[in-house]
């Protein structure tokens, strides 16, 4: 547990799910929170901000107790010095863009003139000078999201809570914002919690990830570890991997849901095997060659992941393959189509379950 930064153990109800999370984020550290839709990410953020009450647990920033159900301590959101970017931006519709950004500093005692000067500078630096005087209600979706981020950053918070800060941005704005966040977070002594659906955004911005599943922590750790060795199908999918459970007999793994894979590393007993779609090839006809694993599959979905196209398929086992656009065009891949999949034994990672 970090002695500085955020330490929290949060239990709270959100609709039908119970959020029950223990976490810590060191100062200067960025923790990415990942999870399926409805897994309770927004609920967790709200609890950390002090905007929903805890059922039990404790939230501390450094040595300062922000919430402690046992002793009845509850510090109001206003007194926590957080910077919160809500998922739905929630700009103040009656204020101009400038006033939105200046709101936090004003509330924390900065003079109006100073707050407006600072906000103007921030907006200019973000290339949003033309929006300064605009009523917030007239912004486009992406513009609103950028302004909401600046608003959260403007009051130099201890704890930055970002709920999907780039979902509505175009590629260049996204790059700009990420670069901006990287440089700011680099010099930022506070703790940051970043909710995102983009595993790679987590990869570039965060050092650790926490994966939520139905309100509980499904996995937590360094980004690289979690990505390489996912513990749940969701994390695997997020990382672009398929993870399969089975029983190893040296180089052969009998999969629980049917099928057998030959793996490079020898193992014994219960294992997880992760299959990277980048290692999987698809073929119209049964391929001859060095690949040790070849099986027949049916395409279930075709989806874009970054620059490549991921073809998910069912078979024994079900997995996915990453192809280039031209390969897709050549194979004329369509959902429902039957193909052959192959993967080299060395491409499979095996680790204890």
């Amino acid at each position, binding site marked *: 547990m970090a002695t500085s930064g955020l330490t929290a153990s949060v239990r709270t109800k959100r609709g039908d799910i119970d959020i029950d999370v223990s976490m810590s984020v060191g100062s200067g550290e960025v923790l990415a929170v990942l999870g399926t839709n409805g897994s309770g990410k927004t609920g967790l953020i709200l609890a950390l*901000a002090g905007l929903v009450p805890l059922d039990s647990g404790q939230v501390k920033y450094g040595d300062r107790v922000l919430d402690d159900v046992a002793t009845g301590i509850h510090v109001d959101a206003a007194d926590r010095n957080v910077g919160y970017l809500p998922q739905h931006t929630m700009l103040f519709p009656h204020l101009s863009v400038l006033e939105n950004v200046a709101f936090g500093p004003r509330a*924390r005692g900065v003079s109006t003139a100073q707050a407006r000067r600072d906000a103007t500078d921030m907006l200019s630096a973000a290339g949003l000078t033309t929006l300064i005087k605009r009523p917030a209600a007239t912004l486009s979706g992406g513009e609103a999201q950028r302004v909401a981020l600046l608003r959260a950053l403007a009051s130099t918070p201890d704890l930055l809570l970002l709920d999907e800060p780039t979902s509505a941005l175009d590629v260049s704005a996204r790059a700009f914002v990420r670069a901006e966040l990287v440089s700011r977070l680099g010099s930022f002594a506070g703790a940051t919690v970043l909710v995102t659906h983009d595993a790679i955004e987590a990869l570039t911005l965060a050092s650790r990830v926490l994966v939520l599943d139905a309100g509980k922590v499904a996995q937590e750790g360094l980004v690289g570890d979690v990505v390489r060795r996912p513990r749940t199908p969701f994390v695997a999918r997020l990382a672009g991997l398929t993870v399969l459970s089975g029983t190893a007999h040296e180089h052969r793994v009998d999969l629980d849901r049917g099928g057998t894979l030959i793996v490079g590393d020898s193992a014994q007993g219960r294992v997880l095997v992760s299959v990277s779609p980048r290692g999987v090839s698809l073929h119209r006809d049964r391929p001859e060659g060095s690949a040790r694993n070849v099986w027949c599959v049916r395409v279930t979905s075709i989806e874009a992941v970054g620059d490549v196209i991921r073809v998910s398929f069912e078979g024994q086992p079900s997995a996915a393959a990453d192809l280039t656009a031209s390969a897709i065009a050549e194979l004329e891949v369509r959902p429902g189509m039957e193909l052959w999949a192959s993967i080299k034994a060395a491409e499979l990672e095996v680790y204890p379950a």
Partner: protein
Amino acid sequence: MRRIPVALLVPAVVALAFLTLPVVALFTRVAVVDLPSRLREPLVLDALRLSVVTSTISTLLCVVLGVPLAWVIARRGLRLRQLLRILVVLPLVLPPVAGGISLLVLLGRNGLVGRMLASVGVSLPFTTAGTIVAQTFVALPFLVLAAEGAFRNVDQRLEDVAASLGASQLRVFRRVTVPVAAPGIVAGVVLAWARALGEFGATITFAGSLPGRTETLPLALYRALEQSTEAAISVGLVLLAFSIAVLLLLRERWWTLS
């Protein structure tokens, strides 16, 4: 703009006609050119002055007292909200005359609180202050209910963000909740002001009718009715003219808001 469906246009036109035709009809009875001379009649002038002063003060009182109450009600749990709302509605359904009586019972010379006030030399009934109290009592529920409705419509997530940005509850209230709810509050203020300006029953019961002190325009109008309808209509038109002037004046400022 899409065309308005007939099923809505017809009742809307009927409603508008029903509201405006009687007012227009008033003008057929009295020559508008006579109004300035009416205004110069001291009694009418006194009553107009008194109405302006008292209705303004009671509207301000309603805002100062009612907006916070509306907010408190809007932000309570369901149970408490229902109870508070019923408490606010009760004075509303009480006919104004009964409201005047209840004020007398409480604040009159022998009233529960009035006795205490009298012992420190303050007497409300039959004074201008009493007129203001009566108007405020009658108008306040209108403001509270309208403002409460407006507050309930403010997305609480806006208030949450404001709080997360360090704004105290009071600051959130002043800088976010009230401005966002402004259209509804303004409507409530107009309702309360109109109610205070037209107040009759509670005023005459609690404050009596003394020209220059408690005889507001509606009271003067009721009395004028005994002498001549035309006189009463003239008083009414004076009030209308005053209201139109106020509305046009306000239009530029916050009326456009809503």
